[in-house]
């Protein structure tokens, strides 16, 4: 994992001093609320329906046990003893006092964390693949490049007042767990035919009010040119992006308005001035960052023997066997596996963790995974480096702590924004919908039989719950002051990115579990052997689902 040097510490320390002064000026009435607003947002602080909300960056999802324990302490000392994992791998506190935030930021800085630019019209936390560095099919570890981007974007003097927020995602794998096609910039780290590392650059994707799949702007950008090219894209956007209408201000709208060819031409023309300048990456810097993400001290393990041992235990323990089947990911190193700790048992808001659970995750990370964990965009936690021989022991401990719900990737592993219970933007609640669905589909055998289903819920069209790219997407809407829910089908956040299609008129809250049941029945009745939900949908289309949902 990356470790701060004195420069990083100094920059973050000065940032906190600056924000402390701003907070004091606001509280004394010297700084107007409308001027404090973007300043506090760029330090992670929203003012929500019930209380302020502080969004803390987890850079590209990497977090260590020291940081987890500090977060636990912060939730106890400054909040109500729990935190929330967001759909962009960050961690939110729901109840801090505004006046305490500079102190919270100082506590975070001690463990090399910050909330800089976790909100506001600026470059946000860069997200990545939760299996970065361990995925079997990964070509190149994206994390060194994520860290290079984190530093470049942090307090970038030119791009702190963009037309709108700006999100970058990076993956080094063909199986896209970072949703790079629905980000303002999506980067796929690749190797060209000469074996040189570079990036495929996708621009102008995004969810929200106007969901768009990003466009390819450059097939191969050499790695040394990463920052100058990003500067060029951001400069074109900063100068030309719309500022008259916040709903048309994202870069996706600019790319659409200009056409991707024209947009790419403008970027290339700007880049011609910046390329090979001082901001060109040096091999020394690339190597320095790569050195933070070297392989941990793996031991040599006979994978077949290790697997046979696991299988033997699983043969006598169906609960363990089910957990293995859903909550495990492959690992490039023989004898190791990546384990997903499930944060979505029924009755808990998806992604919520208590202070005690954060500490248990820290303990588990120390004991089983070299002291590191990852947050995932589907709001779970991954321990990426677990010996297969320790899976049974880990499972028992995870189970005792409530992390072993064997539902990863299934219907009940719902992605869900905080919704109307917390968020002042929301049109409707989302957490109770997630819970109603989890309660209705509590027969795990049925859920397993359904296979992989991404069910994503957003409480408003800002789409924090990524409903457009759920196989089943649910969107809260407001109709004359009442909460209704629109259903979309066929979205996909993977490398086969697709935006869901609206089923039809919205439903009332209490109807949703029945409607979902109907949709699932259509799937079960129509699926071919081995077909997953989204594959059946892609084959038979929307009509049969629509017919069932609106049958009189």
């Amino acid at each position, binding site marked *: 994992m990356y470790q701060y040097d004195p420069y990083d510490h100094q920059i973050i320390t000065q940032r906190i001093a600056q924000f402390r002064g701003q907070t004091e000026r606001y509280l004394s009435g010297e700084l107007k609320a409308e001027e404090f607003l973007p300043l506090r947002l760029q330090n992670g602080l929203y003012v929500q329906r019930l209380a302020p909300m502080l969004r803390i960056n987890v850079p590209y999802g990497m977090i260590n046990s020291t940081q987890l324990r500090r977060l636990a302490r912060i939730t106890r000392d400054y909040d109500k003893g729990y935190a929330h994992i967001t759909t962009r791998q960050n961690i939110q506190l729901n109840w801090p006092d505004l006046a305490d935030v500079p102190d919270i930021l100082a506590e975070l800085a001690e463990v090399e964390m910050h909330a800089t630019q976790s909100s506001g019209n600026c470059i946000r936390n860069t997200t990545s693949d939760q299996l970065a560095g361990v995925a079997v099919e990964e070509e190149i570890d994206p994390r060194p490049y994520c860290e290079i981007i984190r*530093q470049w974007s942090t307090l970038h003097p030119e791009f702190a007042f963009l037309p709108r927020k700006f999100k970058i995602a990076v993956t080094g794998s063909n199986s896209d767990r970072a949703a790079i096609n629905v980000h303002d910039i999506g980067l796929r780290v690749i190797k060209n035919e000469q074996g040189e590392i570079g990036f495929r650059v996708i621009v102008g994707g995004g969810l929200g009010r106007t969901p768009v799949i990003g466009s390819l702007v450059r097939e191969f950008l050499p790695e040394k040119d990463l920052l100058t090219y990003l500067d060029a894209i951001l400069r074109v956007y900063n100068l030309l992006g719309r500022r008259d209408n916040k709903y048309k201000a994202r870069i996706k709208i600019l790319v659409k308005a200009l056409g991707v060819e024209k947009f790419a031409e403008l970027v290339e023309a700007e880049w011609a001035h910046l390329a090979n300048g001082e901001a060109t990456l040096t091999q020394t810097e690339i190597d320095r960052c790569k050195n933070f993400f070297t392989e941990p001290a793996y031991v040599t393990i006979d994978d077949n023997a290790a697997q046979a041992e696991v299988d033997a235990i699983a043969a006598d323990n169906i609960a363990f066997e089910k957990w293995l089947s859903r909550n495990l990911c492959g690992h490039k190193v023989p004898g190791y596996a990546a384990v997903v700790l499930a944060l979505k048992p029924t009755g808990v808001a998806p992604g919520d963790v208590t202070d005690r659970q954060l500490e248990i995750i820290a303990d588990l990370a120390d004991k089983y995974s070299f002291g590191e964990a990852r947050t995932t965009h589907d709001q779970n936690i991954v321990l990426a480096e677990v010996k297969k021989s320790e899976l049974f022991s880990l499972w028992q401990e995870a189970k005792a702590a409530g992390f072993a719900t064997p539902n990863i990737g299934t219907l009940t592993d719902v992605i869900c924004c905080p919704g109307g219970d917390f968020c002042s933007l929301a049109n409707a609640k989302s957490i109770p919908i997630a819970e109603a669905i989890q309660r209705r589909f509590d027969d795990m055998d049925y859920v397993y039989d359904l296979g992989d289903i991404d069910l994503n819920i957003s409480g408003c069209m800002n789409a924090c719950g990524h409903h457009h790219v759920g196989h089943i997407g649910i969107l809260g809407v407001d109709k004359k002051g009442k909460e209704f829910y629109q259903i979309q089908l066929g979205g996909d956040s993977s490398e086969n990115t697709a935006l869901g299609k609206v089923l039809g008129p919205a439903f009332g809250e209490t109807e949703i579990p029945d409607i979902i049941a109907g949709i699932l029945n259509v799937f079960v009745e129509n699926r071919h052997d081995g077909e997953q939900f989204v594959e059946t949908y892609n084959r038979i289309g929307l009509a049969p689902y629509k017919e069932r949902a609106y049958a009189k």
Partner: protein
Amino acid sequence: MPNNTLVIKDGKITDNLWKIVSEDHSDLTQDGIILPYSLWLANQNELSQRVSEGKIGLLLEGDHNLQEQNEGIADFALIAINFPGFMDGRGFSVARLLRERYGFTGELRASGGVIRDQLCYLQRCGFSSFDLDADINIEAAVESLNDFSEGYQISVDLPTPLFRRRA
């Protein structure tokens, strides 16, 4: 337009020797006036001598297309960039382009709706003077120029990125 009597220049509070005039300003014989680009363009020939003597300034908006309209721009003693509101960040890019691409070395002034908390970023983008909204406490504001002593990126005042300076 602020046109305050005091401005921040090169890190110090000083008398404002310049005045932004409007598009329909008629007396172009005055010294120390800052002209909107269109007004300068229309009177370019008769004003060029006084521009080179450092007596006329130029006002640019955030949507000014420098690529197409940059002729003679480096000759001005002062260019002011207007910020219609502090959330409009186009002026940050315009400033860097003036400094890094179009050879402007004179006084570069942020004018209008910028707030104290942006001064450090503005300075890094090449601004050397600030004519802030009248209700801003200029004595306190000047301190914000020193909010940060280090930055990761290249900028006008620090043209080498941190990664090339790290020991």
